[in-house]
């Protein structure tokens, strides 16, 4: 037993502030990434300030202006209930982005904790966690999302639970594997030898060193979360009427797509643009944080 372990220097080689600043400067060096960051920023501003930006109430029906094409009055036209598609598209950013951020965040927090515990303790804990995550991984995220949404019923809260649950095994795997690789490092042995508790080791030594891959995973799954939200709302399992979401705007617009395609085009375009921007940024973050791809 070593007394006074605070005197022994066993701190892990954490990323320095300079490292992080360096990563950021590499990230913004690419003009495409910067453009994508601007697009994402614009979408967030649109979602936050929707009540001020949208020209009309997104759920207000107007039977004198049903199924109209784009015009000076209605830039994106109206749907079959006379609702302004531009306003609905602007408001539709709210559930999509809220879910796009919240679902990977919740799955990231829960998955990291579970994965680190499995990687650290090994044995039966690892076996149980790994088998459960194997089972969950066997289902594509969208299918798992549909199954959970169908079981819980539609609605925004249930949607967050469903998508977070669908993402959980992805984070568990990364956190577990990263933890296991770091467990072989001498500074972990030193920390154990110095009498640090498992909780402190996980928090102080392991978590800071596995955060890079986890941030990459989280960034990449934001785009998937937005896509799944749109898909589930399209299927009627997500955002409920009359509230707008990009998925249900496409669904509502589909039956009149042949004569008035503006709803499908508008909502389809913003989903594509948003998912593309998040994917590009996610790829760029991965390139920056992955040491092997750095010069």
């Amino acid at each position, binding site marked *: 037993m070593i007394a006074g372990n605070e005197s022994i220097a066993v701190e892990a080689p954490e990323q320095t502030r300079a490292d992080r600043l360096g990563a950021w400067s590499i990230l913004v060096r690419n003009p495409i990434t910067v453009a994508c960051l601007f697009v994402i920023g614009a979408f967030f501003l649109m979602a936050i300030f929707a009540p001020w930006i949208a020209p009309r109430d997104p759920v207000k029906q107007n*039977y004198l202006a049903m199924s109209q094409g784009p015009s000076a009055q209605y830039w994106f036209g109206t749907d079959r209930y006379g609702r302004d598609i531009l306003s609905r598209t602007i408001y539709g950013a709210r559930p999509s982005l809220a879910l796009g951020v919240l679902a990977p965040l919740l799955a990231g927090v829960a998955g990291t904790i579970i994965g680190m515990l499995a990687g650290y303790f090994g044995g039966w804990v690892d076996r149980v966690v790994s088998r459960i995550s194997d089972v969950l991984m066997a289902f594509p995220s969208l299918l798992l999302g549909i199954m959970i949404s169908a079981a819980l019923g539609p609605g925004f809260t249930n949607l967050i639970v469903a998508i977070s649950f669908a993402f959980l095994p992805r984070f568990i795997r990364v956190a577990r594997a990263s933890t296991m690789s770091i467990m072989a490092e001498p500074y972990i042995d030193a920390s154990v030898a110095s009498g640090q508790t498992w909780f402190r080791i996980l928090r102080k030594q392991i978590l800071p060193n596995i955060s890079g891959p986890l941030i990459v995973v989280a960034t990449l799954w934001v785009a998937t979360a937005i896509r799944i939200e749109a898909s589930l709302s399209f299927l009627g399992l997500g955002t409920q009427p009359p509230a707008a979401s990009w998925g249900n705007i496409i669904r509502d617009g589909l039956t009149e797509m042949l004569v008035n395609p503006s709803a499908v085009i508008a909502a389809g375009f913003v989903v594509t643009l948003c998912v593309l921007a998040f994917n590009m940024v996610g790829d760029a973050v991965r390139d920056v944080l992955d040491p092997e791809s750095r010069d």
Partner: protein
Amino acid sequence: MSKMNRRQLLMSGVAGAVVMGLPGGAGAQSQRPLRIGMSATNVNSLDPRKSVQNADNFVQRQIYDSLLDPPYGTFDLDYEDVIKELAESWEVSPDSKSWTVKLKEGVKFHKNAGELTSEDVKYTYDSIMDRANSSTQRVYITDLDNVEIVDKYRIKFNLKQPNPNFHASGLISIIGSIIPKSVAGTMSMEQYARNPIGTGPYELAGPVSGGAVTLKAFKDYYGKKPEIETVEFRYMSDPTARTLALLKGDLDIIEGARLPGWVQQLKQQKPDVIIDQTRPGSIKTFFFNMSKKPFDDIRVRKALRYGINRDVLIAAFGGIAGPSWGINPPDFPGGFKEGELPEELRYNYNPEKAKALLAEAGHSRLKFEIIMTQREDYASIMLMVQDMWRQIGVDMTIRTIDHTTYHAEKDKDVNAVVLQSSTFAPVSTQIPVTYYRSAAEVKPDGSGDQNYSHYGAIGGPGVDDLLDRALAEGNLAKRQGIIREAELKILQDMPAFTICTLSFVYARSPKVNLGFDVKAGYARYRLGNAKFTA
């Protein structure tokens, strides 16, 4: 990871969602099949005794002949006009309590199941009346006491009380479809649901898969042999997929989408399309669940009624919806016309009065949640009502679920407000008795019937008596008079109301001639006389 993301990006394209529902292109065939797209996901049951969805009824109408039926394309139920399919002749006793049908001789069942006799008719009706079989048709013949075989081809229906309209509820399709007695010993009802045997112009051509049924002309059919050899039914619940398949020529007839503007938009794309539209079509009824607060308060119910703009709702559907002032639509015999009702019972749109009634009842902001089916006609009406009620300070949150689950849940008394859609024969007693009689009260265990407001059990004194009197009345004019009296009382109490009628719509290629024009009737028609004109 990056490969996966690109793939996901590609998947986010919306066009794929449209294309997925489309059937594959048809190959060249010497004998061209008639292809029909129905609005349902899967075949549920092809046994007429157990049918729950219209798509199955449409298929059954080709497989089975009925004892009687209204002239094709109409809902004409006058004694002298109804057509005889399996019946050679029929007669009703002067007191309307006994109906005798003489069957045609030499009518053969499909699959060598023998000749049609009165034994088969008795078996069919007995099995419907047997509670153990849980037939969905039993509710229509609760006044039938027994079925008596007179001789090999003559059968007598003995009623518990007079019913001059028994032919409308008990002898026309789908209930009048006769099932061979010989199947009782050879297969269970579950097996029969997928292996139906009838006497109709078409018989099942092969195994029933989840979403497709193929029929072929029955070579031993007693009547005129169909001109089209094969009929293919495809179950496609997505209206856009059906529409695109019709435009592309993959389907000849589709069940339309009962959505605001759908007919007009289809005509813009295909000006020569033929629209078959039944009037009045289905009856859309709105129920207030009087067992749940605050719908036990008549002021709240009346306020919500005044908050609905009937004219706007009907106009939005663009010619497929119609008004109903009373419980029975004006198209039905005895149905109230607008001018026949006192001003206060017409419930014309009056948002100010609605707000005042809500304030009087102590509800400045009323909030409640309901479940609702995704099916387009229900969802459209509910979405419009939700918006209208928002204007009078009522927030109705809608939780959307699939159509089958909606029906199951609604029948367990879970909703505060229920929207129900059904097609009824134009007989004055059917709607009031089905929806407003205490005996039909909905029950939490799902064993009840379709009185979703609990009217009669809660409030509505005297209406049960009026309905019973109407059912016991043999004179049609007197019957209608009693029903109108009951309707006035129901309108006064406002437990539920007929919000509108909505036509069933089928879109047909101009290359298909049905042999008759569709004007009214149930949401199905016969294809035995259909032919290709080009």
